[in-house]
């Protein structure tokens, strides 16, 4: 039973990561937009949903917890608010950078993600600073006893993944996705074919960011506790890049596969590292994992640039 529980919570996280990967695939895989700030959209989604669904602290708790607001809204409202907030942040980033060269978006997203994390850390009035928020509501938590809650949540996140997957596939395999891919291949050519390149890039950026915002909300309600420390670039950005690159940039199924494989490596590596390395070293296990992910990314890029499943030859469906 213990192993099954472990697998279920592993599956929940792998599914949430699959959602992030789909968001990145829209931006990078199909449009060629370099978003190195996934963690920022992750954080905005997580905090937005938390603030929308939690109640303001009362009684003794109010002495220890400060938050800007707590609307006590239902879970679904929180998720939608997360998507919108994350989308709005991406519009801001896009408006500043999309007309400039491609490197600007990469640098801006990297910088903004870090600023967002530091902002939540320092501005305690907003979401309780470094301690973060604890006790986020969990949808349908009365359905089963708490030890089986992961099963319920797995169904919830799988439904989100399925809906997002279908929506992205539909868009990508239509003329909309064809324009995005044309922009990725040659911006000037897409422009000469009458496509408003900046407008479509913005759409791609926003759609990807909204998906990431949803991923952030789903993560927040699962762990029921969020702190700024969660949204560091490694856990929130580069692991997702590794997943997409391994699975196959430009292929949604591949991206999901990559998410599950990398998350498996990540989850089991602490356990394995603890077994293999001497105890004095075991406290450093997390850092060994960082190296592992870095090495994995380099090996994929050098040896399997197309990942496990590359883009299909003919993506448009008609």
């Amino acid at each position: 039973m213990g192993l099954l529980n472990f697998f279920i919570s592993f599956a929940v996280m792998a599914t949430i990561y699959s959602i992030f990967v789909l968001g990145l695939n829209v931006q990078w895989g199909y449009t060629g937009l370099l978003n190195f700030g996934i963690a920022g959209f992750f954080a905005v989604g997580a905090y937005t949903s938390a603030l929308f669904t939690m109640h303001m602290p009362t009684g003794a708790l109010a002495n220890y917890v400060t938050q800007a607001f707590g609307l006590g809204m239902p879970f679904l409202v929180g998720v939608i608010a997360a998507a919108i907030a994350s989308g709005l942040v991406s519009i801001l980033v896009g408006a500043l950078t999309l007309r400039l060269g491609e490197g600007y978006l990469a640098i801006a997203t990297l910088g903004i993600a870090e600023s967002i994390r530091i902002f939540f850390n320092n501005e305690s009035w907003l979401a309780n600073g470094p301690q973060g928020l604890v006790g986020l509501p969990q949808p349908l938590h009365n359905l089963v006893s708490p030890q089986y809650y992961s099963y319920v949540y797995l169904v919830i996140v799988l439904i989100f993944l399925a809906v997002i997957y279908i929506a992205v596939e539909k868009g990508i395999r239509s003329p909309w996705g064809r324009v995005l891919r044309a922009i990725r291949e040659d911006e000037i050519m897409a422009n000469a074919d009458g496509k408003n390149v900046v407008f479509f890039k913005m759409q791609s950026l926003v759609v990807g960011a909204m998906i990431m915002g949803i991923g952030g909300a789903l993560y927040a309600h699962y762990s029921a506790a969020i702190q700024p420390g969660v949204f560091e670039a490694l856990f929130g950005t580069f692991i997702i890049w590794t997943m997409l690159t391994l699975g196959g940039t430009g292929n949604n199924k591949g991206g999901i596969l990559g998410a599950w494989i990398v998350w498996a490596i990540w989850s089991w590596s602490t356990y394995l590292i603890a077994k293999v390395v001497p105890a004095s070293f075991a406290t450093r296990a997390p850092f060994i994992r960082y190296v592992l992910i870095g090495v994995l990314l380099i090996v994929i890029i050098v040896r399997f640039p197309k990942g496990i499943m590359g883009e299909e030859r003919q993506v448009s469906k008609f």
Partner: protein
Amino acid sequence: MKTSEPILSLRNVRKYFGGVKAVDGVSFDVYPNRITGLIGANGAGKTTTFNLITGFYKPDEGDILYKGERINGLSLHQTFHKGLCRTFQISRELKLMTVLENLMLVPPDQSGENLLKTWFMPGVVRREEIKNRDKALSILESVGLLHLKDEFAGNLSGGQKRLLELGRTMMAGAEMILFDEPGAGVNPTERKTLAARIRSLVDNQNITVLLIGHEMELVMDICNPIIVMDWGKKLAEGTPDEVANNPEVLEVYLGGSKK
């Protein structure tokens, strides 16, 4: 020779790049339903003139009128929607997309370019896609690329890329096509068929062409009138015979451009 109102007019158009006077006060008219040639030595300013007409660059001075409307100030995708389609001196194609998809991208105002319509009006999108595909297939057949429809465009030979480019202009539904050296990188036999296809576009589909050419035989065969540029200025304009016998033009082409 003037049978009607010009479709495109340049009025004293100027574009400098720092000290380089790429286009230096050029005026000319293009009349509908003809192939107007634009020739001149390397660096004469031909491509820059195209870039100005299509909104890829903004002129420093002067006006560009398309069907009587001022179009300088529009950007590249906007001039496309006005009915102007251009090609590039060095072939461009969407390398990791199939030949068929390269063409299906082109038609303007596809419903399926709206993400919400792909979700909520899939029937409309699908019907348009099927029409679009059939049109692309028939164009591929007419330019002789049908057997390569599923090939990545990046894998085509130089000559095949020029045919794809021609197909692209046919997909655009444009009223005016600007070809920048369509014969570059094409062998002489293929170039003859290419010329014939451009000719038939104009004859059969009411299209106007402005064509930059280096290969004299292509230009002299299918263009009339011909405009000659040199050092950013218009040097001469006239029928192929007039241009071929113009001493200043001969000087540029035979004596080498000097200044």
